């Protein structure tokens, strides 16, 4: 309690600052694992041995890495140097996270690596390694790798046998990163002359038709994930795959393979051109030891460090001199990747590039899952692109809002003051108010600081527009955009009304299933003479005890079209396997199945408790009166269950309404955002579409309003039911 009070005091003294410590070691953050991690540790030890400057390493989980940087650095809680892909460079730069690479000599690195790290002619970050895609070939199955797509197509029929689970070729074809080589190889462009994204092009249609045919001819598996590619390649069940240098560490020792550049497209004569990703060491703009941080970043990218990173970490160095070293020259994998990277185009580090991913993913999935012709997919992507690309709304004046808040505050005070004086003095009306305050103080303080303030901040964020680095006040513009369903028609995924309808359906179906299954099981379990009751109850409660993200990933795997257990079951029963995530109905059903599995135990437990509290005499009396079982259920069980079940149902409906993990991890919104619910949509706007926090907050406010309406409705229900109970 004392500690908490101290915290509250601290909260009021907001301006306190952490004192900088000059002798502190340099902080270096990375997201490496395995060999790459070992290499970076060795390299920093070399640095410390040379300069005497200690380095503190931190391996950050990848999923949280970018957020940690954007949150941490401006607050002075970030690293001095961090390693990241160049893809987010522009974003980091807009948020003022980066210091220019002041010790960089251009001649040391490959020009295309530097190009990737440039913003307005200034290079940020020291290029460390190159990442691009190449062809991994199982040499036992394919002695001579194909150099053209014609050769590739000629080989595939002999290598593929879908029935036996063998395929000639595999790559994550639903991911635009992997499709990009095909797009460029078929002469497609991603950006027009003015630098804006274009999708509806000849090259797009041809590349999509090509990959669709690969799948239709059963040369490549369906619904491919990275895990599937790895597993097939390691089992020798796929002859060729496309992947990057990181995959080399995943290949089983029993597989003989080699890496070659991607083949050339026979129709156009252009090689399949993958994106070039550049991993760089960036110096934080907030580093208190900028000189040493620059020295460390430069050290990591060159010389001995390159050698260690290459030989131990299996990275493809961006350092020109590294390729003169004998150890690197002799390394077949490194040199083949270097060879493959020659055709690669640096992935633009622009914001425009970040806007391309979602529309492209939509187009790819639409074509691969059928239903959309390759020539129509470009238009589809284009529509999605325009819907997601929100222009910044005009600034609004905050004055009317401040005025409104002021008026409300004055009005509220006046209303309180002018209320008729209570008949009893305060002390008499509330005799134990002091005691109540003592009991409530700790909880209220905590809730105020960590629940209520974030809540109010979240609410007010909805009136702002956020662009990396700055908020601008836009009044109700976000709400108007959402409610007017700007950019998409009302009956389309991504429109607020469509998503709302899906969310309501989702909540309704789930709650009905949870309650009916839960109640049914509770009725089965209630019999006092039932043997093994405890065992059943424990087994049936298990889903509740499993963390729900684990449940979600587990079911996602079970719904896989070719390798999932559910389709296995269907096939065993003589039915056709179902492609679960290509149609709204089946994708929705998959989500519901997962959530039902996870949600019924709660209702079962509540129902069990409620059933136990119904006096047995009532049934005995009914029995005497000759009431049938069904009549007993309808006239005794159901009415008496109601008051106990209702709060649980309401709680369950709110939980389901905001059940983010299941939607996000099972269907992921497939097909085309159709199965997204409001929360997952809000999440996407906040974290996947250029961090439009304001827009996402507006979504959250709308979710909040819907739930508020629902709760005031249920409050009436509850009151009615408690009146029935007397």
């Amino acid at each position, binding site marked *: 309690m004392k500690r908490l009070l101290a915290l509250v005091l601290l909260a009021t003294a907001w301006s306190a600052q952490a004192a900088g410590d000059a002798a502190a070691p340099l902080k270096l953050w990375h997201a490496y694992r395995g060999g790459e991690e070992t290499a970076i540790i060795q390299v920093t030890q070399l640095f410390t041995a040379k300069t005497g400057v200690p380095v503190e390493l931190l391996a950050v989980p990848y999923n949280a890495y970018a957020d940690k940087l954007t949150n941490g650095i401006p607050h002075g809680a970030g690293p001095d140097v961090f390693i990241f892909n160049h893809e987010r460079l522009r974003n980091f730069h807009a948020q003022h996270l980066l210091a220019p690479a002041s010790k960089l000599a251009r001649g040391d690195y490959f020009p295309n690596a530097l190009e990737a790290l440039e913003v307005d002619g200034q290079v940020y970050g020291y290029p460390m390694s190159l990442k691009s895609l190449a062809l991994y070939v199982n040499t036992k199955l394919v002695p001579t790798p194909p150099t053209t797509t014609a050769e590739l197509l000629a080989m595939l029929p002999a290598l593929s046998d879908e029935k036996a689970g063998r395929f000639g070729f595999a790559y994550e074809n639903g991911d635009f990163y992997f499709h990009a080589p095909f797009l460029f190889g078929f002469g497609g462009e991603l950006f027009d002359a003015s630098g804006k994204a274009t999708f509806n092009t000849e090259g797009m249609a041809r590349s999509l038709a090509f990959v669709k045919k690969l799948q239709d001819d059963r040369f490549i598996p369906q619904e491919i994930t990275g895990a599937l590619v790895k*597993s097939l390649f390691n089992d020798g069940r796929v002859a060729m795959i496309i992947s990057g240098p*990181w995959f080399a560490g995943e290949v089983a020792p029993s597989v003989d393979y080699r890496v070659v550049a991607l083949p050339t497209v026979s129709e156009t004569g252009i090689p399949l051109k993958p994106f070039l990703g550049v991993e760089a060491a960036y110096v934080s703009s907030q580093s208190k030891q900028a000189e040493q941080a620059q020295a460390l970043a430069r050290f990591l990218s060159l010389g001995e460090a390159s050698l260690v990173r290459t030989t131990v970490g299996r990275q493809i160095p961006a350092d020109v001199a590294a390729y003169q070293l004998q150890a690197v020259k002799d390394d077949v994998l490194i040199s083949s990747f270097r060879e493959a990277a020659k055709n690669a185009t640096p992935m633009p580090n622009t914001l425009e590039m970040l806007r391309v991913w979602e529309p492209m993913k939509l187009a790819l999935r639409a074509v691969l899952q059928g239903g959309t012709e390759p020539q129509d997919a470009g238009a589809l992507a284009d529509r999605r692109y325009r819907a997601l690309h929100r222009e910044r709304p005009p600034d609004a004046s905050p004055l009317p809002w401040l005025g409104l808040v002021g008026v409300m505050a004055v009005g509220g005070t006046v209303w309180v003051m002018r209320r008729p004086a209570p008949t009893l003095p305060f002390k008499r009306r509330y005799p134990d108010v002091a005691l109540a305050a003592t*009991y409530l103080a700790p909880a209220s303080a905590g809730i105020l600081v960590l629940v209520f303030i974030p809540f109010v901040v979240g609410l007010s964020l909805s009136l702002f527009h956020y662009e990396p680095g700055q908020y601008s006040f836009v009044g109700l513009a976000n709400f108007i955009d959402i409610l007017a369903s700007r950019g998409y028609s009302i009956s389309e995924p991504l429109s607020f009304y469509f998503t709302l309808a899906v969310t309501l359906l989702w909540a309704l179906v789930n709650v009905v299933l949870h309650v009916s299954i839960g109640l049914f099981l509770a009725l089965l379990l209630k019999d006092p003479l039932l043997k093994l009751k405890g065992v059943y109850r*424990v087994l049936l409660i298990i889903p509740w005890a499993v963390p729900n993200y684990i449940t979600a990933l*587990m079911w996602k795997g079970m719904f896989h079209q070719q390798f999932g*257990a559910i389709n296995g079951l269907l096939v065993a029963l003589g039915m056709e396997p179902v492609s679960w995530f290509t149609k709204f109905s089946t994708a929705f059903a998959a989500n519901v199945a997962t959530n039902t599995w996870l949600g019924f135990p709660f209702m079962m437990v509540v129902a069990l408790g409620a059933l136990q509290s119904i006096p047995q005499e009532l049934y005995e009396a009914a029995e005497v009166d000759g009431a049938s079982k069904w009549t007993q259920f309808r006239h005794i069980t159901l009415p008496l269950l109601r008051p106990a079940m209702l709060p649980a149902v309401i709680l369950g409906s709110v939980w389901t309404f905001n059940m983010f993990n299941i939607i996000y991890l099972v269907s992921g919104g497939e097909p085309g955002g159709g199965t997204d619910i409001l929360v997952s949509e809000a999440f996407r706007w906040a974290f996947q579409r250029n961090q439009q*926090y304001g827009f996402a907050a507006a979504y959250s406010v709308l979710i909040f309003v819907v739930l*508020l309406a629902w709760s005031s409705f249920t409050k009436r229900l509850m009151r009615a039911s408690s009146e029935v109970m007397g």
Partner: protein
Amino acid sequence: MNRPSKLKMAAIHAGLMLTCMATLYPVLWVVKMALSPSDSLTLTVNPFPESITLEHFREVLLGTDASGRWLFGRQLLSSLVVSGATTLVGLALAVSAAYALSRFRFPGKEGGMQTLLITQMFPATLMLVPIYSILEKLHLLDSLTGLVLVYATTALPFCIWNLKGYFDTLPRELEEAAVMDGASPAQVFIKVVLPLARPALAVTALFSFMTAWNEFILAATLLNDPTRFTLPVALQRYVGEYKVEWGKFAAGALVISAPVMALFFALQKHLVGGLTAGGVKG
């Protein structure tokens, strides 16, 4: 009451067994993934592993970081510390607040209860950004204390509601009798009310514990040092950007779920009473 017929019992057993099988099937798949040597995928209905290895468990449980520190042990410890402290802090705060809300009259009581409920309706992920800045001001970033405070307070509304509901069902006569015997308000609360509320306390504790034990988004954002990660954050690392290590993920998932299952098992009697009673009066 007359004995149910054999046939009916058999039908009930059959129904329960079927649902148990459906319930366990996905769990068996996780077990299979955790025990199978490779991540090999084949279309099969069989949820039992064909060959068994403890390699994944060994790697998850005994893995060390580059400087030879035993990661799992440290992460388990921090998970236990965080979840345990969250339970204690959350319960202490919730119990006193719920008691006040149930027994005392004071202005703003109804409004306060409603506000508690209302804050639950705002999507939690979007509170992340403000929470981060607040913890930064409090100098509680990258500390387990900060995490405990956030977990405990965010679980408070549910805990308070559940406990308040239960307190409402306890007869006041006992407390009044204690007061007659000269007990102070604090004594009444600690010696009379709390022992009676044991089922609800158990359930509420279980919920706070689970919230903290399973959460990973906040933990991943707030914590920096891998030796202090909670277990779910560590588990997330097996499902990386390029690499997905299902075997280790499954093994880790089983290890993480086990304690919660054990708690459920231990508390299941209370679970039935403690939750519904809380619900009856909402």
